[in-house]
């Protein structure tokens, strides 16, 4: 218990963080260890190249986008609290814990999970996935086999499917609607080790 509390003490606002993210103290400690391991130079924050050092992430077709999601616009670093807050998006939704109706929406709610995915597409942050943005993601994800022509038609078709107001772009609302039947809680959650 001694080491547990001493680790927790090092983290600023840890109570608040736990409250906000829903992580238990065991989770937080585990993530803190990982954070320190990633932060090789010991500066107390992470830079994009720290993430880039994760070997597997380089193999991820949209790895760069995901790394980008950790950094708020204009910022080059992410501290532990924000790091945990991003990860908290992927905590499974807990059904049994009754939520205070007055409290703000938890980070791991359905719409927050979706927002995270949405902003990976929406790189210019205008609240819409344009055709070009979608095309870029598709180009990253579809690999070599598919030609540009095919990519374009797939992108067109995808937008056509989701586009309700016919502005040739997918807004968040449209994005949410197009995934209405998908079990987001299931598909956007990972198990965090205690």
């Amino acid at each position: 218990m001694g080491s547990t509390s001493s680790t927790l003490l090092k983290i600023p606002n840890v109570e608040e963080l736990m409250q906000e993210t829903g992580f238990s103290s065991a989770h937080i400690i585990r993530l803190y260890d990982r954070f320190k391991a990633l932060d090789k130079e010991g500066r107390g924050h992470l830079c994009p190249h720290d993430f880039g050092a994760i070997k597997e992430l380089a193999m991820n077709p949209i790895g760069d986008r995901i790394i980008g999601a950790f950094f708020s616009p204009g910022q080059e670093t992410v501290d532990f609290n924000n790091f945990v807050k991003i990860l908290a998006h992927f905590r499974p939704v807990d059904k049994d814990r009754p939520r205070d109706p007055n409290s703000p929406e938890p980070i791991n709610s359905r719409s927050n999970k979706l927002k995270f995915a949405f902003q990976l597409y929406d790189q210019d942050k205008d609240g819409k996935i344009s055709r070009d943005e979608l095309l870029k993601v598709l180009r990253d994800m579809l690999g070599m086999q598919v030609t540009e022509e095919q990519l374009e038609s797939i992108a067109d078709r995808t937008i056509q499917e989701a586009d309700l107001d016919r502005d040739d772009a997918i807004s968040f609302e449209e994005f949410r609607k197009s995934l209405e039947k998908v079990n987001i809680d299931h598909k956007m959650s990972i198990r965090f080790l205690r």
Partner: protein
Amino acid sequence: MALLRLLLALLIVFSSPCKVTALEGDSAEVGLNYSSKSSETSTSTNVTTATITTLPIVIWKWHHVETPYLVALWILTCWLCKLVVELNHSLTSVIPESGLLIMLGFILGGIVWGADKAQTFKLVPVNFFYYLLPQIVLDASYCMPNKLFFSNLGAILVHAVIGTCWNAGTVGVALWACYEGGAMGTLNIGALQFLLFGALMSAVDPVAVIAVFEEVHVNEVLYILVFGESLLNDGVTVVLYNVFDAFVSLGGPKINAEEIIKGIVSFFVVAFGGSLIGVVFAVLISMLTRVTKNVQVIEAGFIIVLGYLSYLTAEMLSLSAILSITFCGVCCQKYINANMDEKSVTTLRYSLKVLANGSETMIFVFLGLSAIDKNIWVWNTGFILLTILFIVVFRFMGVFFLNWILNQSRLIPIDITDQIVMSYGGLRGAVAYGLAATLDEKKIPEKNLMLGTTLIVVYFTVVLQGITMKPFVQWLKVKKATQADLTLNGKINNRTFEHILTAMEDICGRMGDNWWTRHWKHFEEKYVCWLLMTSDARKHNDQIFGAFHKLNLEDATSYVTEGESKGSLAFIRNDDSASVDFKKKLALEYADIIPDIMADMSEYDFGIDNVPVMKNPIPSVSLGIHEQDSKTMPNDLNAHHLLEQHLYKSRRYNRPTYSRSHYKASENPDEMQEIFQRTMRSRLESFKSAKMGVNPAKKLSKHPKKDSTHKPNGKPADPNRTHPYGDEDFEFSADSASSSDIAGHFSRRSTNAPRAGVDNPAFIPEMDTSAPMRNPPWQTETGNNTAVAPSQRAQGRLPWTPTNLRHLAPLRMSTRSTDSFAMADASVDEEAPEEKPGTHHTRL
């Protein structure tokens, strides 16, 4: 029903004399070589056996055909039973089909009993295990939702292995304890026999489970858990049964620690060995389908035969045959579906369904039929009631306990209602009966009691639990399966989510499920697919791509249907491609309405219940097809083949509806058809030989609005366009310049007819010269300098000649990292900046 009775009467009439004659030796050697000197056998019924004085014209040769005839008649009878059952839908919605079939089996059995005064027909275990069960298991495993199965494999295995052992052990021990306590009177059953009985009672039957659960539509995780468990659990049960059977033969005193350890070892060897055999056969099948392209007709047959062989091989090696065929089906499905022609896949699917459904029906009818036998009915109220009680109670306990353990580590816990349904879904079926019937009467004196009890348990679970299952599920408000529509958004985002999750796991630095999935995928892509898939199939093996392809196909179908009903579909045929077109007239007619309709319809569809695009009426359907026509890849042969299929049919069947302008009434339809077929065939062959096609038209925008927006492929916007189909018509007619004067007409039919051969010299060069195409960046990187500033038409063509493929294949591995991606972009930007102004990657 009357028909059925008649058939049955016929059966009995046939079978009674045959018994008589069988007693008198085989006297049915008849035929024209029947010598008049041969000793005259005297059977009262057969005319053939009488001395013949002259050449017989018609001979009664019952004995020649007796066995196959009876088999065929019984199959027919059982299937007619199914027909009768399905006649009344209000009945099947209350009582599951399997239960009704069993009841019909009772009736049939009663009739047979009434006629023969003995049980003439029953389900023989050998027939069941060798001829009825394999195809059911093969079908079930082949149609198994693969991904779902493997992602829940852990839970399924826990339930199938530990749960089954738990059930077998507890039921056996509890029954034995009750027997010792005096609840059943005096029976000649020892502890080991009770355990053996417990083992055979633990078989949750996939046939019964599928039959009931398919009608209930529970959520997919629950379905896969119950279904997967029942499938694997059969294998485990058989293994357990064999182990206990061996123990019984050994006899109590000889069993020591060593034997028990041997039993446990053999349990694992048999189970895993069987699964391994199945995987080996799956690999064999997949490799075989790589080369069966030339014998497409029997392609599907190979899979059935090899699947059956995997069953028999495992049986031969005394490994678990059911597990073998299960893993065979589950493992090979992905690769064979990719390797085989779409038609063969459909064939396979349907033939498996026919076989499986057929034998399923027979099994249930015969389960009922077998009950009408006074020999097996040894009644022991205590034994029977306690058995039913214990199998239900211990099933509940086992499922709840195992799920509790599983839920500790499951991301999405199995909730309580699902657990109840899982427990309640433990239906016993034919496997239990088959095992009980194989019991050796010498070793187990109370075999008939066990058999009878098994039958009662089967009836109890299939009929009673089956009937109550549906209301039960509704009452518990179990999550039902959601009808997931195929949407590109769904597919793409699924993929994105997967990537996000793996990335997050990487960042958190743990090996989670996604880590395993991803590494398996990596391995599979690199080695397994290379080994088991044709290069063609590998190319198309992409989910997003596949979804896109499927949507396009559906669009094509509905487009043709719509077009026909409007009477406005026209064909333009030329040498190497078929294309569909709306006639100008229709396009003009609809030009101003289309955008409005489109907006309205999509508003409606997406806004309210998210109906996918292809269900829209004409306008958007036509958009879809134009994408298909203009943008999909010509090498996507399947699409073209299927499209042609549809077009071909529609033309033939619906000719009168649009013959007014395009057809001369004097044309001989037969001749037309013949020529049509011939050209079709030759074109198919040339498609195959050339391995590529040519796309008739280039990309088109979906709606006019977009024309004013930026076009990345360099196509100039056309602000003067009055309606969406304006320049399409131009494109199509340009493409088919030679035949456009008579659009939609077989103007080429005289030239096409002699071109039946594959190696048409005039054809192949044309294919090769059509290769200039637009190069994606990665190709440019290899120094493959085919980058020609493409004409608009060439842009529509696809770069996949076989040589290009060879370039692509190794490259695909090497360009995994983002760096080479960036390089590829850089290089293309240098070399052909004017070619693709809109394709710069802006990377983070």
